[in-house]
């Protein structure tokens, strides 16, 4: 390229009406085919969830939370439930703990299947968009059987869960997992064995572990660098059942560039996440004890909470999602709730990851971090 071409920059808005930008927009500055500046913009998806939480009582709040990210509804609602349980000092029955954990892991698989299809579509292979989405339907069937709703499940409630397992739910869950396990190797070959997929993802959006931690990333983007940072293992929640069984935190250590992760590593990492989730569900299903699904006193106790503040957090599909809750004496609603989703950091880390990449690779970097607009706009 001649110098005068290099001097000329073009500004281009990627979104909010772009087909692959749903609820976000980034301003890209291009020189030729290269992105030299990326300016991610938030605010297109804002629904003032934090303010809404101040007007809902402590059993309704979870419903707002799950609407932040419908894809991981079981996981998204949990930080709020956890914070309320901490302030109210509620005991969760054993049965509810295990059921919560099983459903959260099922939600993780379903969310990752959605992401994986979307990522494939962004890379131009529509067969791999629809294959996982068909499998995902079986998980949604199980959710529907459990709660009556495919996405807005509102499952966890302070002191337990709302709906009990029955034979049909377990059967549908089993069908979904069996189908997933059955089709997994084929799809793994279709993606990781595909030279075109490797060509598009290897070395794209690469960062070191140190950089990743500096960006504030968590979840699969960090685990793909080789650091087993996982809340499920690092800070086991007494109200969840992760410590009841043996399982390993999935980690991806690349051979070519140890301590760094690119889009391909993050893909591999998410496949391992799904396999781990299946393993956890398989191990937990026989361990579901008999008993009540919700603490009988929970309803009375969660009506009015004592003064206090608590910090709820969960290892979500996209990283650690947290919520800070402050209550006043005998309040029916929170005084203040502050949500910190995992995706704000991954979205704004584009500012550092994208410059220098080709314009065509921008969406690959974006897709490999799996940001969901609901988490950063709240």
């Amino acid at each position, binding site marked *: 390229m001649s110098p005068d071409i290099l001097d000329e920059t*073009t500004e*281009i808005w990627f979104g909010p009406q*772009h*087909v*692959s930008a749903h609820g976000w927009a980034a301003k890209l500055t291009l020189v030729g*085919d290269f992105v030299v500046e990326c300016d991610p913009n938030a605010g297109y998806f804002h629904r003032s969830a934090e303010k809404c939480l101040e007007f809902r009582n402590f059993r309704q709040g979870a419903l707002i939370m799950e609407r932040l990210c419908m894809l991981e509804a079981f996981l998204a609602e949990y930080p709020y439930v956890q914070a309320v349980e901490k302030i109210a000092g509620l005991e969760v029955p054993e049965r509810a703990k295990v059921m919560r954990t099983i459903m959260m892991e099922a939600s993780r698989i379903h969310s990752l299947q959605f992401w994986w299809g979307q990522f*494939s*579509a*962004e*890379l*131009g*292979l*529509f*067969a791999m*968009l*629809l*294959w996982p989405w*068909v499998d995902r339907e079986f998980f949604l069937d199980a959710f529907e059987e459990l709660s009556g709703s495919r996405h807005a499940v509102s499952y966890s409630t302070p002191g337990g869960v709302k709906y009990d397992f029955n034979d049909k739910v377990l059967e549908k869950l089993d069908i979904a997992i069996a189908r997933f396990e059955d089709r997994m190797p084929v799809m793994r070959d279709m993606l990781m064995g*595909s030279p*075109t*997929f490797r*060509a*598009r993802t290897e070395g794209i959006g690469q960062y070191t572990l140190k950089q990743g931690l500096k960006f504030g990333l968590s979840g699969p983007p960090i685990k793909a660098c080789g650091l087993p940072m996982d809340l499920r293992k690092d800070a086991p929640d007494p109200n969840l059942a992760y410590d009841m069984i043996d399982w390993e935190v999935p980690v991806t250590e690349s051979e070519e560039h140890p301590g760094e992760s690119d889009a391909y590593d993050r893909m591999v990492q998410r496949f391992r996440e799904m396999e781990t989730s299946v393993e956890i569900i398989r191990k937990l299903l026989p361990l579901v004890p008999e008993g009540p699904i919700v603490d009988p006193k929970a309803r009375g106790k969660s009506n009015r909470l004592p003064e206090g503040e608590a910090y709820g957090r969960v290892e979500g599909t996209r990283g650690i999602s947290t919520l800070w809750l402050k209550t006043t004496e005998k309040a029916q609603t929170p005084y203040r709730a502050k949500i910190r989703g995992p995706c704000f950091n991954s979205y704004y880390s584009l500012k550092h990851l994208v410059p220098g990449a*080709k*314009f*065509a*690779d*921008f*969406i690959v970097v974006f897709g490999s971090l799996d940001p969901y607009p609901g988490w950063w706009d709240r």
Partner: protein
Amino acid sequence: MMGGVVLQIDFFAWLQGIPSWLYGVIQWIFGIVSGIFYWIWGIFTWIWAAVFDVANFFFLIRAILFPGLVFILMTIIFAVWFTRKLWGRIQDRRGPFHLGKYGGLQLFADAIKLVAKETIIPDKARRWMYRFLPSMLLLVVLIPFAFIPWDPIWFIADLSVSLVLVFAFLTAVPVVALLSGWISGSKYTLIGGFRAANNQFASEIPLIISTIGPAMLAGSLSVMAITQAQSNIWFIFLLPINVATFLVAAIASVGTFPFDAPVADSEVIFGWRTEFSGIYFTLTYFAEFAEQALYSALIVALFLGGFQGPAFLPGSVIFIIKFLIVFFFFVVVTSSFHRLRQDQIVYFCWKYLLPLSILNVVLVMLGIANIPALQAILGIGG
């Protein structure tokens, strides 16, 4: 009267000139009237000749019905339906099935919907070019169908250089794409237009070099002659690698998956077609499928023996069966790979396809020169 400047005119000379001037005016008017008359008369004679002169009448039938315009349009409509249905099957869904048997009428419904849609021309677009280019694109893609030998007798045209002419027309396609990206007045369409040019830049050379092999084996540049030269052996058995390079380069030249960087929807919305709506979008969309169909037909004619086959079937039926098989491969390839980046397309085409196709040309040259049996099979006199 001689010498000096005479300002006065010679009145009598002028008077004498009037009759000839009048005569000239009458002649001029007569010329116009007779010209119009002969023009209309010419139209009548042309229609007369076309309809009642047997040779011309059959040419008209060939050009309009089979294997001309109507047949080609039905082929394209079928191709779109076939692609959608097959993609649906590959992607674990059913594809169109509501209208007609197996969704066969879906395309007509889509076409009616698209034609009925409002045409939105952006403010910054060049209006006349915006209207002109999509139709130009479809025209450029449809004309080369005239040189496809669908049948040993019932074909439209056969020129001694028809192979070259086909590629001459097809080279104009990315130019139209680039232009329509340019005049649409949007940054995304401009990027898409340049990507289309880039695709052609990468794929055209291996594409054309892949056709040199069959042309040399047949000793002719006419598609018809190349087809006829395969009466003893199909060129796919002599040039298997060439078929592969031609197929891949053709897919890259069309710009569909996995070489669909020009219209990559997750990157550049819809590339150079972003701003087209309604009938203009329909034309560009049809042009893409027409190009795929054209390349499939070319593969059949150049490598699969065209209309040659079992004697109990008519030549055109054999050609159409082969065409469907080749088109099936097109669809399968376009639905099994992730999209390549533009620089990877160039890298792929130039690093792998180009040397392979050139190697084939060299092999063909050596074969023709040194293997007498080959000449006997091909029936060429050297």
